[in-house]
Every structure is written in structure tokens, then in C-alpha cells.
């Protein structure tokens, strides 16, 4: 544990869809440059946490605090400008714009007009700058999401399954990329199923199951935790004890 003041504090966040509590009293704290893994089986609420923090859904209760300021329920663009950004599990590029223009949209609205070429280089998309989106693979489109996020000069980025479907070589490349962002002081919350990938990037994890936190702590301990093992190996049922 570090004793630096928290950059982002998520307190007892709860999100409800109709009768379904997709997220239930989840809390998390992260300091600048830290990386935390967010894991859990399908449907456990990982993306819902990202969507709620980033203003797509309004939480039923709980708070999101960035650098001491309560931004719960703020509109998405204010949250983004305040310094929280994200990528999408299913990439969401601006499909009628070129790769360069996609990043330019963020850069225009960033405080210091982030240099677009440089941002593209950071996610290995520089040589695609003038290409249309349709020429990118899904993995490249996810990196473009990341580039757009980075161009807004964020303090925290939620990375939603960036590694899915990559070859081992590409996985290593993406892990290095994320570590470089960390080195710049950006905090990362990495949603991921692939443990091998997570090990390269994060030291600690938050494990969700059916919207609840079932573990928070060092990744190594998580792998040894009985309940975590049960959730991952024994199906997705809640062993309510």
C-alpha cells in the first residue's frame, strides 16, 4: 500500500437496471501511476462500473471522487475533461473520420492540445494516421479508443478488455504500452480476463462477482483465495456464505 493521497476514490457505488443490481456497493481507490486489475466472470459488473464512473449510467447510490471533488452523476464530457477516460470493450471509433481526425477530436478539447502524432505513436498507430477506420483491425480500433482517451490528457484511464483476441506478441506490446502510460503518472484500471496479461501490468486486483467485490488486494493472493477460485472455476453461482 502507498500512502499517496488517492487520485480517484469510488465509494460504495451501486448501479441498478430495472430489478437487477449490476453493481453493488463497490469501492476502489487508486493513486497516480498505479495500475489495478478489475476481474470477474462474464456479467459480473466490470463494464457497468466503467460506464457508471464515466457518466453513461447514473448510480443508484455511492460516490465518485476525483482529487477530492465529488463528480458523481456529472455529465460525461465534464467527467472526461476532469481527467477520467476509458476505452470500450467493443471499440467505438468515429467511423467517418480518419485515424488522425479521431484523435484530433480529443486533442481539440484537451487543455494543452495534445500532439496528435505523438499520441498515435504511443499506441503504435502512427503509420495509420491517414487511413480510414474501416482499414483497422478490431485490436487496432481498441488502441485508437485508447489514443483518443490519452489525447484528452487524462489522470485515470479505464481500459476495458484491450487484450482480448491478441497474439502473445501483441499482448506483450500492449502491456509495454500500458506501462509507459503508468510511467507518465496516468493511473490505470485494467479490465481483463487474461491473468497472464494482468500479471505483466498490475500488482493488485479487485475481483467482482455478481456486482459485488469478493476480493481486493495483491494479484498473487487473489489467485490463492478460496472464493475467487470458486467463482472462476466453479461457474458463476454465488456461493453465499
Amino acid at each position, binding site marked *: 500500500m502507498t500512502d499517496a493521497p488517492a487520485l480517484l476514490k469510488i465509494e460504495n457505488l451501486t448501479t441498478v437496471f430495472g430489478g437487477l443490481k449490476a453493481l453493488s456497493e463497490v469501492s476502489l481507490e487508486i493513486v497516480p501511476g498505479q495500475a489495478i486489475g478489475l476481474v470477474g466472470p462474464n456479467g459480473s459488473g466490470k463494464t457497468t462500473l466503467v460506464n457508471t464512473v464515466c457518466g453513461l449510467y447514473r448510480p443508484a447510490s455511492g460516490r465518485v471522487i476525483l482529487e477530492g471533488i465529488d463528480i458523481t452523476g456529472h455529465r460525461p464530457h465534464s467527467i472526461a475533461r476532469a481527467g477520467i477516460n476509458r476505452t470500450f470493450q467493443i471499440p467505438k471509433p468515429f467511423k467517418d473520420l480518419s485515424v488522425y481526425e479521431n484523435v484530433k477530436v480529443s486533442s481539440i*478539447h484537451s487543455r494543452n492540445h495534445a500532439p496528435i502524432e505523438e499520441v498515435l505513436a504511443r499506441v503504435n498507430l502512427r503509420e495509420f494516421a491517414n487511413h480510414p477506420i474501416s482499414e483497422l483491425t478490431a485490436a487496432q480500433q481498441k488502441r485508437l479508443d485508447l489514443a483518443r482517451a490519452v489525447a484528452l490528457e487524462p489522470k485515470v484511464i479505464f481500459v476495458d478488455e484491450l487484450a482480448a483476441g491478441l497474439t502473445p506478441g501483441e499482448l506483450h506490446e500492449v502491456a509495454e504500452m500500458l506501462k509507459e502510460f503508468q510511467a507518465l503518472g496516468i493511473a490505470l484500471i485494467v479490465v481483463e480476463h487474461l491473468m497472464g496479461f494482468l500479471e505483466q501490468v498490475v500488482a493488485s486486483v479487485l475481483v467482482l462477482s455478481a456486482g459485488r467485490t469478493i476480493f481486493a488486494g495483491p494479484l498473487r493472493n487473489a489467485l490463492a483465495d478460496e472464493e475467487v477460485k470458486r467463482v472462476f472455476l466453479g461457474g458463476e453461482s454465488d456461493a453465499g456464505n
Partner: protein
Amino acid sequence: MQSTDSKMKRLVGPTIATLVPVIAFALAIHVYSNELLLTYMAIYVALAQGVNIMYGFTGYLPFGYFGFFGIGAYVSGLVMLDYNFPPVVAVVIGGLGGALVGAILLPLFRLRGAYFAIGTLAASEAIYTIVANPSLQSITNGPYGLNLANYYSSGMAYGSAIGLVAISIIAVSYVRGSRFGLTLKAIRDDPYSASMAGVNVPRQRFYAWLISAAIAGMAGSIFGWATSVFYPQAVFDSSLSVLAIVFALFGGIGSVWGPTIGAILLYSVYNAIGISNPQYFQLIYGVVIVLLVLFAPRGLLGFWNFIAQTLRSKRKKND
């Protein structure tokens, strides 16, 4: 970091796109003497460009576009009649009136797709009902419309219409080439992604809507002035929206030239055959909208680009 040279180069296209139609309209009057018809044609070019800003850059189809047009005709007509404003100033005030109503109708943006189209239509019908209401006769002259015969000047009205053509094309060129336009395109592609790129989505849409409404307001003002005597149903006419949308779609939405060409071509056709059988023409235009949206979303200009590209790639292969 843009060199002034490349900045100048980027101004060439918009300048030509503005000057060619303006000069063509200015010369047309010496060839074809029906000035009122040419005035209407110029008004339709401006309306089609207004639709272009709205639909081409935000994806919101404003079926109720005629509401701004009618408000413009009334606001400008009333400031002429009641306060004796010179017509050209009244036209600008009519544009502001259109924009003001646009601001009032802002909540319609909560509606998506077809609901927005229908919502604007309903709002404009409501405005018409209010303006034409006999109980407002002391202000709007109710169902009897306005008589601007004292201000009639066909030449000045035509000149103003040509000026509005220039304004609308410059507005579209600006939107296309600017950061504002890039932001609008991003919003059109994915509003939530755009907001995570730091874009205040409702505000940017609102600006486009205001520009578009102001153009319609000025177009309505010039229409009223040129027509000189009009009933409320003549300026609050949903077929104005239909025509403007068809012209813009036919020529090619999102481009600078498309709506200009679409409006000039189709309005000529409309006058050649449509006037005698208007009911069939409405029907045909309805069908044309559907076909265009389904099969040629980029209109004539999109089709042209497609052919040009195909030819170019063929030539490359042959080399």
C-alpha cells in the same frame, strides 16, 4: 503551424463554391426574366444548405424546418409594418427570430431519429396555429396574413436572396472545414464517444441548430418580402421542408456543392412540370426521399465521387 500558403489553398474551394452560384444567379436575371421564380430558387438553395448543416452534420432530420421559415417571414414583416424597419435589416431580425425559436425548441433534441423529425413537425404546426389564430389578429393579423406591398422591391429582394445564398454556402464551408465541423461529425458517428473526447454534445448540436434556424428565418423573411402579400399557410407550409430536404439529399448531404446543385436542378424540374400537377409531385418527392435515404445517402455528389473513384482505380490498374 499551418503555412499561410496552404491556408490560402484551402480557401479556394469554398470561394469557388460561393462565387459560382452567386454569379450564376446574378447573370440569370438577364437571360430569364421571371425574377420572383429566381428569388424562390435562391431561397431554396439557402434552405437546402440550412438542412445540410442540420442533417448533414448532426444526423437530425428537421421535418419542421418550415417553422423557422414562417417565423422569419412574420418577424421581419411585422418589424417592417409596425416599426418601419428597412427590409434588409428586417431580414436579419427575421433570422434572429428563427434562431430564437430554435433556442426555445431546444428540448426537442431529447428525441432521437424519426421522433425528432416528427417532433419538429408538430412544434412548427403548433407555431402556425398560434400565429394564424384569430384571437391574435391585433398582433399577427391572424388568418389574414401580412401585406408588405409598401415595401415591395423585387430587385432588392432578389439581391438579398443571392446574398443569403452566399451566406449559407459560406456557413456550410466553414462548418465543413472547421474544428466545429469535425466535432459535429464525431457526434454524428457516436455521441457518447464524442462526449468522452471532451465534447459538450448538446451544446455543439445546439450551435448547428441555431445556424440552421437563422438561415431558414432569413429565407422566410426574404420570401415574405418578395411575395409581398402572404397568408400564414403560405409560409408555414410543410412542403417547404419536404422540398428543401429532397433538394439537399438529392444533391448530396454533407458536401458544399450538393445542396446548391440539387436545389437548382430539382426546383427547375418542379417548375417545369410540378406546378400543373402539384399533388403528384408531392407524392413523387416523398418517394424520392425514401429512395435517396435508402440507396443513395450521399446523393448526386456521392454518386459522382463513386464514379470518379472507380475510373481512377481502373486507370491505376491499367498503368
